[in-house]
């Protein structure tokens, strides 16, 4: 009697597994795309979203051969809202992957429920030092960079150009602190002043008069999105560009900011892991298709969104669609078998990238557009400073 029952349930279970397996290959891959789509940081989220959706569209609305379902949510750049939205995506929508978060303070709030539910997070932007170091997690992959990286490259550029007295401005939140740490790691001169305005502050009258008083010979700003737009406009309007040279990471020197500020940005140096003029087939296709689809040049955020989608695509493909097999998915993600638009890309032990960082300068191109030109490599095959403290489970 007992054995009969057991046999029956084994058969049932086997049928169930078979059904589940067959359902898996036609079931959509669900992506929880949680990003900042309102407020001063909205331009960043929109670019990541557009890049991500473009990659999925070019793959025939599929990821790894399975239909893709992208569920989009807005975190309003707030950790509370982000956390609630992440809970909803994970518990109600039961997404297979999470991606899209722009700001690191939101990322740190979203990470906890995501990792707890064993959902893979593929970052298309935020790369907080916490997740690269002692809080590194098997479920977190950065398809962008570690927060310090672009600032490390910028520190190197400012150092090489021989500036001796640099004022630093970055918002008071995790990535802002990473930015200053990263910049100082490679810039060895004097710091004339260090200012941490509130995240999403828009009026920089106070900072600008302090800059004037600091007598710095250069200013380094990490002010992404609307913050950078306002700062650069006000910096130029106050006449400070006559006295000091402005440096920025790609975050304050890409298409979104250039479009809003215009020609006064000509000649500004910035650093990035990518440029729209990079000469590789994957990038040429991406830039051409992006311009065709959206009628504008892509920014580094769009490139990161595109790459994140390609990485997920590769992971679904190489794990043969068995997304419940976490070890297999993780292995496929780690292998990173996709053609990144930035050229060479591989993962470090902490699942953050090892890649090259470039200097770019804002110029007028042959078509008369104000845009970036990639100048040269600043850091080659560069990882991050936190990997040593990461005890990643195998």
């Amino acid at each position: 009697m007992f054995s009969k029952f057991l046999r029956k349930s084994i058969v049932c279970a086997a049928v169930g597994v078979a059904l589940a397996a067959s359902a898996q290959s036609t079931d959509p891959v669900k992506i929880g795309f949680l990003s900042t789509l309102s407020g001063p940081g909205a331009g960043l989220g929109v670019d990541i979203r557009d890049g991500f959706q473009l990659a999925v569209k070019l793959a025939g609305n599929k990821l790894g051969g399975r239909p893709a379902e992208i569920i989009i949510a807005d975190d309003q750049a707030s950790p509370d809202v982000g956390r609630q939205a992440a809970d909803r995506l994970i518990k109600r929508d039961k997404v297979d992957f999470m991606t899209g978060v722009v700001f690191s303070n939101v990322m740190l709030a979203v990470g906890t429920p995501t990792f707890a539910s064993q959902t893979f997070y593929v970052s298309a932007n935020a790369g907080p030092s916490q997740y690269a170091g002692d809080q590194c997690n098997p479920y977190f992959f950065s398809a962008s960079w570690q927060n310090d990286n672009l600032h490390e490259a910028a520190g190197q550029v400012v150092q090489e150009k021989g500036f001796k007295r640099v004022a630093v401005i970055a918002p008071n939140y995790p990535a802002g602190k990473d930015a200053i740490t990263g910049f100082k790691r490679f810039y060895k001169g004097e710091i004339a002043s260090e200012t941490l305005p509130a995240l999403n502050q828009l009026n920089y009258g106070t900072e600008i008069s302090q800059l004037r008083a600091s007598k710095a010979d250069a200013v380094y700003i990490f002010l992404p999105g609307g913050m950078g737009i306002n700062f650069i406009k006000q910096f130029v309007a106050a006449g400070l560009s006559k006295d000091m040279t402005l440096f920025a990471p790609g975050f304050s020197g890409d298409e979104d900011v250039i479009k809003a500020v215009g020609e006064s940005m000509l000649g500004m140096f910035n650093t990035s892991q990518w440029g729209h003029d990079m000469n590789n087939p994957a990038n040429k296709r991406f830039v051409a298709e992006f311009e065709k689809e959206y009628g504008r040049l892509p920014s580094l955020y769009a490139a990161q969104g595109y790459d994140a989608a390609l990485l997920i695509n590769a992971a679904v493909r190489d794990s043969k669609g068995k997304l419940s097999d976490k070890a297999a998915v993780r292995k496929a993600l780690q292998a990173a078998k996709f053609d990144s638009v930035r050229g060479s890309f591989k993962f470090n032990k902490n699942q953050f990238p090892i890649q090259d960082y470039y200097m770019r300068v804002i110029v007028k191109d042959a078509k008369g557009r104000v845009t970036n030109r990639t100048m040269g490599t600043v850091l080659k095959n560069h990882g991050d400073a936190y990997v040593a403290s990461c005890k990643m489970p195998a």
Partner: protein
Amino acid sequence: MSLNHILLLEQALNGLQFGLMLFLLAAGLTLVFGIMDMINLAHGSLYMVGAYLIASITAATGNYWWGLLFGVMGAAAFGALLEVSVLRRFYQRDHLSQVLGTFAILLMCNEGVRLIWGSQPVALSTPESLSGPVQIFSGFYYASFSLFIIGVGLLVALLMYWVITRTRLGMQVRAGAANREMAMAMGVDVQKLFTMVFAAGAALCGVAGGMLGPVMAVQVGMGESILIVAFVVIVIGGIGSIRGAFLGALFVGIIDTAGRTFMPMLFAQLMSPEAAANAAPAVASVLIYLLMATVLFFKPRGLFPVHG
């Protein structure tokens, strides 16, 4: 002139600029509160709608000045429409109903703007002619648009002073603020007066939107944060008093700006930049409320009380 003097002067100008913009918002608010005894939380929405109209018209015509002109007129029309259609019904109600009703309007305005313009900020740039710096004296450049803002703020304040003290309309407004029932008994067409005051308040909001839009950002919810400060201004100045709103706005503007500049400098002397960055803005933002508490302690009706 040494750098420290330049820093002080620049901050004084920044404070003046912020104060004058606060005055534009507070003037309408204090009149509506004083004359109609109406708490209007949707006042910030008029500012937002004005800024969006200006940004859209500027984008459509390619000319900031057309945008400013028609945007301000649009904001006034929107304000008048709101008064005639909805707010008029709130005058006889108690303050709680007014707060709830106008809060609902605020939410509807936010969502309406989101529907029409989307949730991303809308671009509004300073006009080309005012986008550069001006040299005030050797070694000191100041943004020409900021000077323009100060000029417009002073001009509007003068104009209001003239209207309030020298015209028949102004007399009616003053009478209404001092004693509404008596003004009505003396034959003032209150309904028309209220609509006009409301439209004028909305137009001032529109002007503030056009001035601050290019400096800050034209986005959903831009009215709320500044509305709270505007309320502080009218409470400090005395409800219903334009003179009070003017001086209150300048006080608040200058103290707020000074706090935001010098608190971090002071704190940076005492602790690490990171700790200072956390502590200083918190302390600086409390300053205007401290000012309000101090004023109310000595003058519970504000600096220039109107009601007899």
